[in-house]
């Protein structure tokens, strides 16, 4: 059943970002293989990227390392082992392969991912009002206008999150940028090759503002957006009668709804659609997070474990565990215990591209200023002033 690839009896060292429960989940997925092939895994979980950097500089890297995003891969490219011939790369979509590549060579493979570019809705409320799920941005805005004409409020847009209020808004703005300018533009923005004052970025902020600060489009208008917690923003969709119909929220929203309304059934009572595209190119890229693994040593046991981690078997076990989505295309929607998770995984692996959270990857803690800035803008702040402030901070930070 398991192909040990000559790694029997060996030891693999690994540094990953998971600890605690997540580490236990991860090890539970690998355990059957480790036991069968008698491979010892020495795992160290840390969020501190300096640990890995120091080990690599000191000439003592782990065999395998897990990174929170592929942007970090570049600095290690000279030390990495190409994954072609070790991992079944064909099982991953071209979008995933290209994200794991440095200058055309695949060095990184993605183990677990989550999704953000989703719009949650209440199918019962849609059926009762005769609304259908929009497939383009224009249809979505036409639906919004239809809901307004019918006397309802289309969007629930809460961004409240204590000290980090505003992060939901930054995800929204990135989704718009992905649909107007595409993922490459977003990567340039992350590297500050595109200024914060760029007209395309300003336009994305304004388009977002047009929805969430509008008294007709958003529940409670600008005040409602700022003062409603991001999780609570899902509730009005399921009131009777519904006080709002649409909420753009990440994949975890399904769990929030299930906990708040235990009587509701997924798919029948709550569901999501992919935030639609504005045009065929760049289409509707998926925004989210994913953990990428790289190899520093191609010892037989390390190669064997790497091959197993990215096999359909491990992907199926990941799906079954309910811990996250597998980027492996061979892991079918039916492998997931929840139909919504399966649908999410399919949407993710079929998306034309995958984009990591931009502001999390910017230096100097600029994301906190971004959160605060976008909240201020929704509350009536001057956009040019705020963008200029962020541009000044970015100029100093890079």
């Amino acid at each position, binding site marked *: 059943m398991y192909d040990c690839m000559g790694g029997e009896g060996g030891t693999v060292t690994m540094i990953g970002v998971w600890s605690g429960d997540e580490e236990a989940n991860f090890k539970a997925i690998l355990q059957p293989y480790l036991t069968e092939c008698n491979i010892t895994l020495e795992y160290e979980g840390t969020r501190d990227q300096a640990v890995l950097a120091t080990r690599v500089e000191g000439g003592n890297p782990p065999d395998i390392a897990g990174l929170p995003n592929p942007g970090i891969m570049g600095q290690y490219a000279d030390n990495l082992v190409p994954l072609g011939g070790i991992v079944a790369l064909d099982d991953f979509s071209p979008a995933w392969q290209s994200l794991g590549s440095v200058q055309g060579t695949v060095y990184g493979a993605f183990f677990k991912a989550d999704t953000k570019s989703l719009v949650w809705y209440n199918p019962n409320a849609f059926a009762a009002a005769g609304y259908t799920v929009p497939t383009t941005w224009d249809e979505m805005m036409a639906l919004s206008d239809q809901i307004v004409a019918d006397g309802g409020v289309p969007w*629930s847009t809460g961004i409240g999150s204590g*000290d980090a*209020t505003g992060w939901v808004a930054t995800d929204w703005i990135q989704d718009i940028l992905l649909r107007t300018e595409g993922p490459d533009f977003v990567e340039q923005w992350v590297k500050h090759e595109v200024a914060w004052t760029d007209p395309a970025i300003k336009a994305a902020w304004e388009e977002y503002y047009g929805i969430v600060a509008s008294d007709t489009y958003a529940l*409670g208008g600008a005040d409602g957006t700022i003062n*409603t917690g991001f999780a609570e923003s899902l509730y009005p969709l399921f009131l009777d009668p519904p006080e709002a119909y649409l909420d753009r929220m990440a994949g975890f929203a399904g769990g929030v709804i299930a906990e708040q309304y235990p009587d509701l059934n997924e798919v029948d009572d709550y569901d999501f659609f992919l935030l639609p595209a504005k045009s065929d190119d760049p289409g509707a890229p998926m925004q989210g997070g994913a953990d990428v693994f790289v190899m520093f040593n191609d010892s037989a046991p390390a190669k064997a474990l790497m091959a197993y981690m990215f096999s359909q078997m491990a992907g199926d076990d990941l799906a079954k565990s309910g811990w996250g989505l597998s980027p492996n295309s061979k892991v079918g929607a039916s492998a997931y215990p929840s139909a919504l998770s399966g649908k999410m995984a399919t949407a993710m692996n079929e998306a034309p591209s995958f984009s990591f959270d931009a502001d999390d990857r910017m230096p*100097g803690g600029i994301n906190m*200023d971004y959160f*605060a800035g976008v909240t201020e803008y929704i509350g009536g702040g001057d956009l040019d002033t705020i963008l200029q402030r962020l541009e000044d901070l970015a*100029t100093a930070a890079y």
Partner: protein
Amino acid sequence: MSTRVVPKIMKQGRLMPLLFVLPAMLILTFFVVYPTINTIGLSFKDTKGELSAATLCVKDQPCWGIFENYRRALTDEVMLRAFRNNALWIILMVTGTTGMGLLIAVLVDRVKYEPLAKAVIFLPMAISFVGAGIIWGFVYDYASFGNQTGILNAIVTGLGGKPIPWLTRGPWLNNICLIIVGIWMWTGFCMTILSAALKGVPTEILEAARVDGANEWRVFWSMVVPIIMPTITVVITTMVVNVLKIFDIVYVMGGGQPDVQVIATRMYQEQFVKYNSGLSSAIAVVLILLIIPVGYMNIRRFQQQEAMR
């Protein structure tokens, strides 16, 4: 005549007093002097405390060289708002707590249930800032759908009004709502100290004034207030220092909005959220420089009062 022999151990050399203060000096050096000097040093360094702050300068932008962190601490737009907010806090909270404290102290001085009334006013002092922030967060709660669970908005909507986002409507309402929490917490402290001072006012001279025909208003402003003035000054300066370093209420209730930040929360954000130790240290030094004159005045006043006794 016999000469009294002083035991050797009771003879004080030059060294003895120094030995007595040594433990205190050591502790102060370790926990106050060293961190202060270190902070001042870091305020001239970059974000990681390694290179000179001058390396933070950006080409074609204003630059103060090694004082670059101070340029940001003193001219940055968000920092200017923090200074403005701190000034508002000082004006409203110091007058609010001292004024209310004095008023309550005078009023309860004349009633039988004085201890009970004072205990109730003092009670909020026993609640932590974070606890108070959470409690008042409920009071100011704003809901964009469903029922209003915040009592203020329940009243507003009950009377037919539209709910008000108390904590996010800037730049004045949100700050004032936070300052009210501070006044609620600290009035009891001011009241207790002022009440003790009031008890110390000799009744004979007040009686004399009344016999001479002064009404209660006149007695209060012309006799009582001048007599307890040193205490009022100490209360005011203590409150100014307290308000300058106000942090908890804004941290718990402010939700990170730039509109309500104060100096201390900016310092925290730079250090612990953005890991920018240079700028954070510069803000800390600015805060110390603002507090030192007030603290000095406070100590001077205290010494004068002691000398009067």
